[in-house]
């Protein structure tokens, strides 16, 4: 199946088709909504029509009395607060006391069918006192009359404030030869995964609860269910069927998941709760609307002297991942560059809008855009090529950043070289006619958060179990969550690679907390790195047992044996050996089934100051993208023709999947750049549908040339690093800088719509500044 694996590998490094592919193309892959349970009821949610209201009373008597209605729940039944981060539990499954945004859940019903559920919801009467609503984070930084949460900072709506200062920024600014200041303004964007949110729950008379859910982090869902429902984790079983995309939007434990379980407990019947597309938009947890002020100062030659950053980040109604977001908007701004002086203030402010959360390249996208646009401007000011500016500032391998990030591997310079050469930069930059341009944008992202969100009890971040039966089939268990990125395929391929067996022997068991050992799931681009290491260790553990058994069979010491294809043989004498199955049977003679375990925890790292762990990762990815655009100056429409995406993910283990991640990331990045916007009138979301919230169409996609130039990472599995989120961040500034090259207009505010392009060109002309003769 796989082709072109590098020397020494049979599978890894080639193009490995996804193992669920045949099921997905034939409609046989099972997603949560495809599951039916006997006697299943349907849940419905009453959502708040008010952005901010005190709930005086909720009368559910009429709803409860309706035929076909099995249960009606309000907030007091399960008031225990929860949230994805242990330090900011500010959500409840159903609103208690207050509604905090249009869409907040006020009550829930379980009924025989969805129509009955809907009718029951309409029969619920809510008496509420309307409170002042807060749509603007600039208002929320000051003391307000009615703070959205009691935990807001000193009577304001500030959820989190981060202040960091390394070195001496004021002194550096005084010494600077060149300074550029950019104010970036970014509306919110959302994941727009194709599979809507859906959960099924079933409580059984043995006191157990089973939950099937479209989640990318089964373990955090498992914890939150236990905390809110008051049931020990070992009596809850979480199953993750196929998941139709997540991009961060299925990483928080979400209130509907807990409500669905609560309804199942109340009724004793299985309950399915589907969240329709409009309510998926209201559930949101997408990228934070942000305003950032970025000052970058350099010496006369373009060596960076300082960053000075202030970020105002809009959180919506809940904390979600927001504390992490607030740190990331600062600390993820520096790499891939050496920054000797760094000052940052970030404030995340609650508003009465759908919550912001983690979205692909979480916390690293908006700030990256401003930094890369500022660097483009600096290069122009200094009079050097944008590539040269980056080259002069590149972090070397084996270095430590000023905030004590450990940089082990970086192939950033190779990325720069590849992007420059393949794009034909030399002959294009500032040399093409008006309306045509190339731009450079670079990237840096974590390859797995070093800090697991839940660090007590101390436990590995990833665990993989293997179980082999007499027939030689290998069952792989892990709670890593494949949401389409291909982690099941990678898991199987790593096991097959280490054991020398065909991929068909390996079966990745569906995530099921009854049998899957804990892995923290799909977020922070951690899966390849952490699960990959755990899988490799598990497979090596199994291999060692087989080598031991084979040693007795062939009469050679273990040290002389190597794994061949479905075989164990003597090194350099492949004719002497034994088959995989013979070795397996010999190894099993006394044990029955053969099992093995691998676990991974990232090593200690990071500083000791407050917040030092935020952004620490066992490795980082690096990127240098060149985009080439063609602009129609009359209409302002532009087309991104090609993106040369030079990316350092260490050693790519499945080229098909890495390319897929890069191409998909570019699609998502372009969406945010060209038009995707969570559009509000006051606190009201005006475009909660895929018709009005437009993701790019196939016609808008550029040709993408993936240039995988990374060298092996010393700690990554077989040298690999992440490729899930880092590939997004360089996209946006590369296109913005290409637009500048094309028409001479800088865009600090997103999205860049045709009317703004036309306006920018007109303003430039009016001010008498010609660009490329136009």
């Amino acid at each position: 199946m796989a082709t072109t694996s590098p020397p020494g590998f049979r599978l890894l490094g080639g193009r490995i088709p996804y193992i669920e592919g045949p099921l997905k193309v034939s409609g046989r892959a099972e997603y949560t909504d495809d599951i039916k349970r006997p006697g299943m009821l349907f849940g419905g949610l009453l959502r708040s029509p008010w952005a901010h209201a005190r709930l005086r009373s909720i009368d559910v008597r009429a709803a409860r009395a309706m035929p076909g209605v099995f249960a009606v729940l309000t907030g007091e039944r399960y008031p225990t607060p929860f949230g994805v981060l242990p330090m900011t539990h500010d959500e409840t499954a159903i609103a208690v006391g207050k509604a905090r945004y249009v869409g907040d859940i006020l009550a829930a019903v379980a009924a025989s069918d969805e129509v009955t559920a809907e009718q029951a919801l309409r029969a619920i009467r809510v008496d509420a006192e309307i409170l002042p609503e807060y749509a603007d984070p600039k208002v929320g930084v000051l003391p307000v009359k009615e703070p959205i949460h009691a935990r807001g900072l000193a009577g304001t709506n500030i959820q989190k404030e981060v202040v960091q200062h390394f070195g001496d920024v004021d002194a550096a600014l005084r010494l600077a030869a060149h300074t550029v200041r950019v104010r970036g303004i970014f509306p919110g964007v959302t994941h727009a995964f194709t599979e809507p949110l859906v959960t099924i729950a079933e409580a059984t008379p043995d006191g157990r609860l089973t939950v099937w859910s479209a989640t990318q982090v089964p373990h955090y869902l498992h914890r939150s269910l236990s905390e809110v429902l008051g049931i020990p984790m070992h009596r809850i079983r979480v199953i993750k069927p196929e998941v139709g995309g997540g991009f961060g939007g299925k990483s928080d434990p979400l209130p509907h998941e807990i409500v669905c379980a609560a309804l199942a407990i109340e009724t004793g019947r299985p309950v399915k709760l589907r969240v329709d597309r409009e309510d998926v938009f209201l559930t949101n947890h997408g990228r934070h609307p942000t305003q950032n002020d970025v000052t970058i100062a350099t010496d006369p030659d373009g060596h960076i002297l300082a960053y000075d950053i202030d970020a105002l980040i809009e959180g919506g109604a809940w904390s979600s991942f927001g504390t992490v977001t607030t740190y990331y908007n600062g600390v993820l701004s520096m790499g891939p560059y050496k920054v000797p002086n760094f000052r940052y203030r970030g404030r995340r402010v609650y508003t009465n809008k759908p919550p912001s959360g983690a979205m692909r390249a979480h916390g690293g996208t908006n700030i990256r855009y401003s930094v890369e646009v500022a660097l483009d401007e600096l290069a122009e000011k200094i009079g050097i090529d944008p590539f040269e500016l980056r080259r002069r500032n590149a972090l070397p391998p084996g270095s430590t950043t000023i905030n004590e990030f450990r940089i082990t591997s970086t192939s950033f310079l190779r990325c720069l070289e590849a992007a420059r050469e393949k794009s034909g930069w030399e002959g294009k930059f500032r040399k093409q006619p008006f309306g045509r341009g190339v731009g450079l944008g670079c990237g840096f992202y974590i390859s797995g958060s070093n800090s697991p969100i839940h660090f007590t009890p101390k436990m590995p971040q990833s665990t993989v179990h293997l179980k082999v039966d007499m027939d030689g089939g290998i069952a792989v268990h892990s709670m890593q969550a494949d949401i389409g990125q291909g982690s099941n395929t990678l898991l199987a391929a790593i096991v097959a690679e280490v054991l020398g067996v065909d991929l068909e022997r390996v079966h990745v068991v569906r995530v099921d907390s009854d049998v899957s050992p804990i892995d923290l799931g799909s977020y922070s681009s951690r899966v390849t790195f952490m699960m990959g290491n755990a899988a490799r260790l598990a497979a090596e553990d199994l291999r060692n047992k087989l080598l031991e058994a084979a040693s007795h069979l062939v009469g050679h010491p273990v040290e002389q044996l190597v794994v061949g294809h479905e075989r164990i043989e003597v090194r350099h004498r492949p004719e002497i050996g034994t088959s995989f199955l013979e070795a397996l049977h010999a190894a099993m003679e006394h044990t029955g089934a053969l099992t093995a375990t691998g676990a991974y925890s990232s090593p200690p790292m990071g500083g000791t100051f407050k917040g030092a762990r935020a952004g620490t990762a066992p490795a980082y990815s690096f990127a240098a993208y060149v985009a080439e655009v063609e602009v129609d100056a009359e209409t302002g429409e532009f087309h991104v023709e090609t993106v040369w995406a030079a990316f350092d993910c260490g050693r790519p283990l499945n080229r098909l999947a890495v390319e897929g991640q890069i191409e998909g990331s570019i699609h998502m990045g372009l969406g945010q750049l060209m038009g995707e916007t969570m559009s509000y009138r006051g606190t009201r979301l005006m475009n909660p549908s895929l018709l009005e919230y437009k993701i790019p169409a196939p016609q808008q996609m550029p040709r993408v040339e993936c240039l995988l130039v990374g060298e092996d990472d010393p700690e990554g599995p077989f040298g690999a690093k992440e490729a899930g989120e880092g590939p997004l961040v360089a996209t946006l500034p590369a296109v913005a800088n290409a637009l500048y090259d094309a028409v001479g207009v800088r865009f600090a505010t997103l999205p860049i719509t045709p009317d703004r392009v036309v306006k920018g060109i007109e303003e430039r002309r009016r001010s008498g500044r010609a660009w490329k003769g136009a």
Partner: protein
Amino acid sequence: MERGPAGSIRVNGQSYDRPFPPERILLDLLREDFNLTGTKRGCDLGTCGCCTVWIDGVPTLSCLTLAALAEGHTITTVEGLSSPSELHAVQRAFVERGATQCGFCTPGFIMTAAALLRDQPHPSREEITKAISGNLCRCTGYSKIIEAIEVAAAGTG
């Protein structure tokens, strides 16, 4: 197109004669009544294309179609495209070229692409792009989907 007897519907080669409520949506009929869950519900508004099936061979959004309008007609869903032993050429190409990531949009794309290649065995890249523009994919950026359809058209999969 010729219609079968009233009250009957033909799904993936099998005829059914069963009454269904007039307000039943075709997508619900297929998913809930026929348990053909390969056809996906993505938006209920005809914007994402995940629910694409064929009515008499024509790609149609089943979330916007009343089941009553399909009465007497022939419906083909993704489950009916391939035989139990062999995938359709488009399906094979999607697997080989990595054109399916999360897979939720995939059945809709497959139905759109298979109809295109049936009617136009050698489409240009522009024609492929145009044909799939009613289907949304959030994972792949469409690159590998277009590539897979080209591969299927060329018969080189």
